[in-house]
């Protein structure tokens, strides 16, 4: 079966092709069936591959399937080949499973949109690119997938391009991600130059010999990878694009900006475990970037009032947890959290989409309340998701987050402390959403009366995801540790001895985590149900700090002040022709300056032959002066 794993890629590819060529002719209905069907077939293949991989002895659970010889340059060659091992199959399962459910949900959610065929073509293309990313057996193919998911993400954020906010968000995402991609491309070049191969197996086998542990090159490579990951996985300092990305359709937020694409950075770091083991300093960077992002984004999530934006910041925060895990070397824990998060965050987004659908697109939680009466199914599924996110014992997030914190406790105590605080915040904002949205009194009666439960095509995926959000946690029960044992060989092909943990300690920490989560829920109940004025009082007593958090730490403003404004002033001062309309955030400011430079470059082009020839003569003299005097 493993040899047929390429079918996983074939189905979404076919789907994309058919829908983009004949989509409008097939009609909405056919497309809405075809696209999910293709992803379902991929899922079936993934399951089959998983089962056959399980049937193999542990040391044979890594299979490469070469599709064709891609390129050969001398003794350097790259194949278009898939790597099927524990890690890639786990990822593929999560991607296809969540992806399929979101496709089904989309069929209901996007029903009224004019451009359903285009939407599904993009969505299938996304699955193709994401599977390419996780199944690649070399860095080059991984990069193909990496760029592919970025592109589709950009197209889907701007899917409703009539909204200027959506178009701007798309642009922002694109430019920020280019910065990250730039890091990955350079890392790939360094690997190619240093090791002479891009195949994972070769790289990981040779790297310890070529690059001594802690050497500068491997440090540079891993830091460049970290840069790439901060872009794709929305970590400090490149996280700014993700909250804006919520301008896209909600299922897209669920699929791309919560469950799959944004985890690509975590996946890549986990995949490059051998390299990160060689560069402990880079690992520390990863962990610290992760924990700071987690805390930072968690506090912002606490103050937001837009349901999707809360979830977006929560995603950034949870990705931070995954970074902590891969940073401290607990790769299996990171991937475990990645999988559980994929389920519960997709669930939360889709439930939020259901709420939004019911309230005619309203997302401000201050206008909601008591919705559990009107939307019972959505309420229960959202509750399960929130419980998982908050880390309530026996829900999936509890186990995975605990695994991460346990690893942090062993390696980096300060990281653990901030992590625990963040876990508390997580529980707080999770149940803030629940209480404010679904409990209490309705705040906007007109909206409330209008609300209605979503159709079954929407609720059924929610229920399945909810089941998943509970169950995925149990593959990683500390006592069983199935996922750890399953994944570990993928990170250390050499077969490093599994570390033995103190079970007692782990249990103690488990209890601590559970208590903290429950404390968070209790605090949320106190603050938002029992004593609704409490948040205001807290907010007042916090004074400036509160305002700081409320305004997202003024990060956008700081970017404006220190990056955009100086650049803009410089631009205005230099030419007085600066295009003000283009300025919207740091990225656009940068784009504006570049554009201004472009305008200057154009002014050189006067249309006169004499000046053209003069430029040539100048070049000639400069060239000769340089060459003759060397």
């Amino acid at each position: 079966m493993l040899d047929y794993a390429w079918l996983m890629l074939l189905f979404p590819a076919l789907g994309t092709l058919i829908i983009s060529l004949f989509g409008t002719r097939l009609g909405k209905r056919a497309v809405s069936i075809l696209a999910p069907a293709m992803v379902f077939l991929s899922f079936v293949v993934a399951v089959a591959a998983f089962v056959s991989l399980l049937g193999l002895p542990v040391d044979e659970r890594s299979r490469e399937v070469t599709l064709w010889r891609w390129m050969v340059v001398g003794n350097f060659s790259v194949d278009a080949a898939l790597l099927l091992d524990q890690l890639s199959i786990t990822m593929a399962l999560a991607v296809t499973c969540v992806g399929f459910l979101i496709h089904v949900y989309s069929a209901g959610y996007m029903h009224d949109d004019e451009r359903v065929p285009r939407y599904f073509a993009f969505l299938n293309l996304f699955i193709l690119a994401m599977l390419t990313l996780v199944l690649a057996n070399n860095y080059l193919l991984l990069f193909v997938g990496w760029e592919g998911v970025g592109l589709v993400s950009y197209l889907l954020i701007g899917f409703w391009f009539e909204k200027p906010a959506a178009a701007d968000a798309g642009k922002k995402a694109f430019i920020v991600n280019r910065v990250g991609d730039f890091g990955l491309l350079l890392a790939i070049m360094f690997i190619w130059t240093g090791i002479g191969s891009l195949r994972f197996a070769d790289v990981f086998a040779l790297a310890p010999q070529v690059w001594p542990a802690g050497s500068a090159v491997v440090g540079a490579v891993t830091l460049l990878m970290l840069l790439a990951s901060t872009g794709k996985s929305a970590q400090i300092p490149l996280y700014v694009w993700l909250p804006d990305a919520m301008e896209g359709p909600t299922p897209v937020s669920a699929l791309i900006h919560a469950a799959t694409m944004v985890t690509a950075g975590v996946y890549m770091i986990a995949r490059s475990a051998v390299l990160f083991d060689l560069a402990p300093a880079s690992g520390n960077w990863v962990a610290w970037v992760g924990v700071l992002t987690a805390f930072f984004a968690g506090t912002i999530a606490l103050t937001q009032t837009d349901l999707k934006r809360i979830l977006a910041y929560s995603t950034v925060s949870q990705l931070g947890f995954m970074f902590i895990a891969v940073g401290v070397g607990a790769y299996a824990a990171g991937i475990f959290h990645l999988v559980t998060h994929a389920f519960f965050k997709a669930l939360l987004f889709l439930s939020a989409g259901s709420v939004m659908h019911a309230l005619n697109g309203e997302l401000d939680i201050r206008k909601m309340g008591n919705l559990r009466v009107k939307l019972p199914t959505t309420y229960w599924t959202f509750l399960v998701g929130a419980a998982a996110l908050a880390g309530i014992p026996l829900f999936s997030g509890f186990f995975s987050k605990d695994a991460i914190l346990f690893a942090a406790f062993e390696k980096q105590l300060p990281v653990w402390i901030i992590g625990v605080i963040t876990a508390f915040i997580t529980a707080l904002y999770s149940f803030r959403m629940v209480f404010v949205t679904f409990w209490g009194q309705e705040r906007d009666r007109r909206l409330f009366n209008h609300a209605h439960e979503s159709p079954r095509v929407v609720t059924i995926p929610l229920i399945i995801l909810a089941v998943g959000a509970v169950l995925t946690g149990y593959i990683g029960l500390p006592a069983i540790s199935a996922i750890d044992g399953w994944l570990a060989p993928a990170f250390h092909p050499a077969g490093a001895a599994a570390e033995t943990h103190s079970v007692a300690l782990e249990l103690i920490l488990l209890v601590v985590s559970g208590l903290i989560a429950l404390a968070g829920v209790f605090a949320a109940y106190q603050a938002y149900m029992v004593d609704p004025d409490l948040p205001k009082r807290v907010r007042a007593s916090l004074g400036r700090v509160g305002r700081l958090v409320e305004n997202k730490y003024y990060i956008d403003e700081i970017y404006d002040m220190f990056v955009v404004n100086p650049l803009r002033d410089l631009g205005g001062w230099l030419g007085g022709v600066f295009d003000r309309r283009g300025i919207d955030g740091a990225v656009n400011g940068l784009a504006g300056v570049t554009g201004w430079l472009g305008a200057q470059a154009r002014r050189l082009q006067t249309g006169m032959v004499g000046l053209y020839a003069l430029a040539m003569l100048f070049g000639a003299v400069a060239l000769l002066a340089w060459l003759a005097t060397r």
Partner: protein
Amino acid sequence: MVPLSWYLILAAALFCIGVFGALARRNAVGILMGIELMLNAVNINLVAFWRHIGPDQMTGQLFAIFVITVAAAEAAVGLALIIAIYRQRNTVNVEEIDMMKG
């Protein structure tokens, strides 16, 4: 005998005069004349080197002959172009021929 370097310096000077002429003129015909000066200066070089390196190798001299051929063909095409543009715009001043810029 005349030292080789004298020829070369004469050639360099003529070349630079040609370059300046091509840059300083506004009239397309004038520019073309400057370019012709440049090509001829190169020919002096080729011939002088031919004479110095050893006349039994004919390379320099033949190169010069080909350069003359090219220069003639170039002049023919160039002047035809100039006539064509004159017919269209009634001017051959290159500073007025600047519809495209930016």
